[in-house]
């Protein structure tokens, strides 16, 4: 199983400089990818812009959106943004897409939230199918495509159009259950082999209060569930090792770990914990 690291695009206090430093260090360290999240109505960096910045200061790591909310963007523009990052990085984009969970992001983007599932399907068919590829460049060839979500439709879109599945986070058994569903859909749609399985999780080794305050804010939209997210958050190297091992046993191909605070020391603590 590969391990990637999240870039601090959504944590309070993250500067552009800090974000690029995380990317540089991830490229030098044995992380296999860097990943970003996507919000509009939040104090966060735009994912493609962040990945473009990361592309400039890295050579090796994959650049991933875990996930980008496709239907917020007009289809042609989404394809262009993704393909541009892919080309700028010399072909290192892993494009994870989903419909997102918050209506306020759709409102802030002036995008229609009704019918977003259908729109995502169109976007996947457009990007994967190279539709209008001559006119709307640059080339999308070679973009690794993932789909996230937990509905049956998310799994069938994934199996139909993508290379694999992007899980949204949770304890290893939640990932295992989603992975089984992804495999079932993959076979049902008659795809050869198996889907790539990406997972994600958080960790807080430094200021636990600050980290948990971030989680409570970021996941406030889940209501009571946010406390379960906080309670399950690994706050020690041992807990993180358990988490990582659980994902590996569940068949995860790539696990991206996100810090809950942006300070570069968390990157160093993570490296130590995984060593």
């Amino acid at each position, binding site marked *: 199983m590969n391990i990637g690291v999240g870039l601090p695009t959504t944590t309070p206090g993250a500067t552009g400089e800090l974000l690029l430093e995380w990317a540089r260090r991830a490229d030098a360290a044995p992380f296999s990818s860097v990943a970003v999240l996507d919000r509009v109505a939040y104090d966060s960096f735009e994912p493609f812009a962040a990945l473009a910045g990361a592309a400039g200061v890295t050579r090796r790591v994959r650049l991933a959106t875990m996930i980008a909310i496709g239907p917020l963007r007009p289809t042609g523009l989404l394809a262009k943004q993704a393909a541009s990052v892919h080309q700028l990085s010399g072909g290192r984009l892993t494009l994870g897409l989903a419909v997102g969970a918050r209506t306020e992001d759709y409102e802030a983007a002036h995008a229609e939230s009704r019918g977003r*599932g*259908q729109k995502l*399907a*169109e976007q996947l*068919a*457009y990007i*994967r*199918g190279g*539709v209008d590829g001559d006119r709307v460049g640059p080339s999308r060839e070679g973009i690794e495509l993932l789909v996230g979500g937990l*509905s*049956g*439709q998310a*799994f*069938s879109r994934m*199996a*139909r*159009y*993508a290379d694999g599945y992007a899980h949204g986070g949770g304890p290893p*058994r939640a990932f295992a*259950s989603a992975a*089984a*569903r*992804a*495999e*079932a*859909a993959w*076979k*049902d*749609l*008659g*795809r*050869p*082999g198996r889907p790539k399985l990406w997972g994600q999780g958080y960790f807080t080794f430094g200021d636990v209060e600050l980290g948990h305050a971030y989680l409570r804010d970021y996941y406030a939209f889940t*209501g*009571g569930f946010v*406390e*379960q997210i906080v*309670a*399950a958050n690994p706050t020690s190297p041992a807990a993180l090792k358990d988490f990582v091992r659980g994902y590996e046993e569940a068949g995860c191909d790539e696990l991206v770990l996100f810090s809950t605070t942006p300070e570069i020391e968390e990157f160093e603590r993570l490296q130590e914990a995984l060593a």
Partner: protein
Amino acid sequence: MPPLKVDIVGGGPGGLYLAILLKKAEPSTDVRVLERNAPDATFGWGVVFSEETLGSLRDADPETHLEITETFARWNRLDIRFGGRELRSTGHSFSAIARARLLEILQRRCRALGVELDFGVEIEELPDADLVVGADGANSLIRRLGEFGTKVEPEGSKYVWFGTDLVFDAFTFIFKETEHGLFNVHAYPYDERMSTFIVECPDVVWRAAGLDELDEHESLAFCEQLFAHDLRGRELFSNRSLWLDFPKVTNRVWHDGRVVLVGDAAHTAHFSIGSGTKLAMEDSIALANGLVRRSWDVEAAIVDYELERAPVVERTQAAASDSAAYFSRMATYTQMEPLQFAFNLLTRSGRITHASLGIRDPQFTRALDSWFGGRAVSPPPAFSPWGEFPNRFSLVPSGFVAVSPEGRISPETPVIGEWTRPEGPVLLQLGHAGRRGSCRPASAGRDLPLEDGWPIVAPLRVPYGPFSRVPERPDEDEILAQFVAAAEIDVDVLELDMAHGYLLGSYLSPLTNPVEDRLRFPLRMLEAVRQVRRGPLAVRLSITDWHPRGNSVDDGIAIARAMRDAGADLIHVEAGQTVHDDRPEYRRGFLTALSDRVRNEARVPTLVGGYLTTLDEANTIVGAGRADLVLLDLPPAQIERSLDPSNTVLLAEVRP
């Protein structure tokens, strides 16, 4: 820290047990149980426990555990009475206790610890305590006083809960056919004098028998008479026992401020899996542990409790719902041989499989295996498929083979003229891609149109997905001729692909063929092929479109029946993909329940896949009569092993 004031509303097992645990953990806690009824008044008769619960009870409070277990009725046998036969299976441990006795033990322990027990108390508003626990059952008042996102829906058959002074010597299932329909009983002993006796029947049977017009005593008399033989002339006793619908209670959250729900108030589980009391008492253990771990921080503890219990409860509730639905559909299994009927019943929830039953009760499994072995060619433990063909080896599916170049899905799709038959028994999946044709190979994805492809056809000139080609109307005669010509080929099983929104499947669905007589062309096709084809002929169907305006499961079963009548020997059960924006449900074995319904309601042999990956799943499904043939997704290395005749797989999907 000032001692916490806890009011527990409801003096059932969950509430009393919580009181015990809280008082034990922190004696200074002011714990009060408020119960509406008198201490010795109780509904129900016996409660049943499986072995697992006992461990957690022993750890939580050894004194209670000791008293309860010493009082238990225990047995490890299951009796199934059906079709004039009585079938027994051993190795299933159960314990039971009279509910009144359980409450009495818990009440005594409460008093010994200094818990205040207030009986005959009717609550009207939320008590003013630091923590209020709603342990007041399925119809919880505490829950109704708060905001929990409650949903209550009836599930399963009509049922009535009696006691009897016939002491059964095993957990007993009785199935009795009457002129009105099927009645079934769940019965178990709970002490040396009494047994629980629950009678169930589907709503339609209940009305047909006129039970909606009988009162408590008349209902009891009806049941006594109906089951006189099984009761050996003994009586049934009522405890205000009325015919009820089981309420499935779910809540979005189990806490609202300082109020938390435990047991049935938070979540009921159909009685047919016997877990209601267990869930309640385990909830109490989790809540008490949470409070201790969080140093009596009520809000934090409540969250811990829900975090810990939610997944277990969800799984149990899902299993209970499946079980309730299962019993309400038992009539479809009454045509089975009693041995298979019994195995179907034992494996209904997925918790017991062919392999695990082989360990618990080798005698039963041997009987089942030899019953199967006697009917078919291959020796056990592998189950041989139905019918005439010699199966000592796996049957290998060909994958989609097109009747013509225009009928291909992608350029890589084999066409029947050039298709080379592999070695060994093969199932040939013959089809025409219809509007899903002229697409890129599956390695790139599905339903991605080729830039320079070929013209495609379908009954309705609507493209399959975003950016798909628009199809033309098909030349039905030409296509029929192509299928008939292809059908001359010598294969062990020929399958006509009428599933997944390909050409033939598109005729069958209102979503893709909005005409009156949708079966016209597919039946014409089947009949024409049936004429030339001598060996087994299968039809692959999407039994449900997974779409509100598409074919429902009932529609699919009717189509399967029509195919059977037109000469199909086997139905390959699939679902969905008729349209690209359907709403599928994916998980392990997601098609098994569909195959079960098609096989046992349309009375036609079935072949099913649906992400099955173990031989045990295959043996369990076939043994229980949910399908006749099973398609397994095995990795290539395992397929080699599986072609050994002593460990035969029924079908192996060869995946590159």
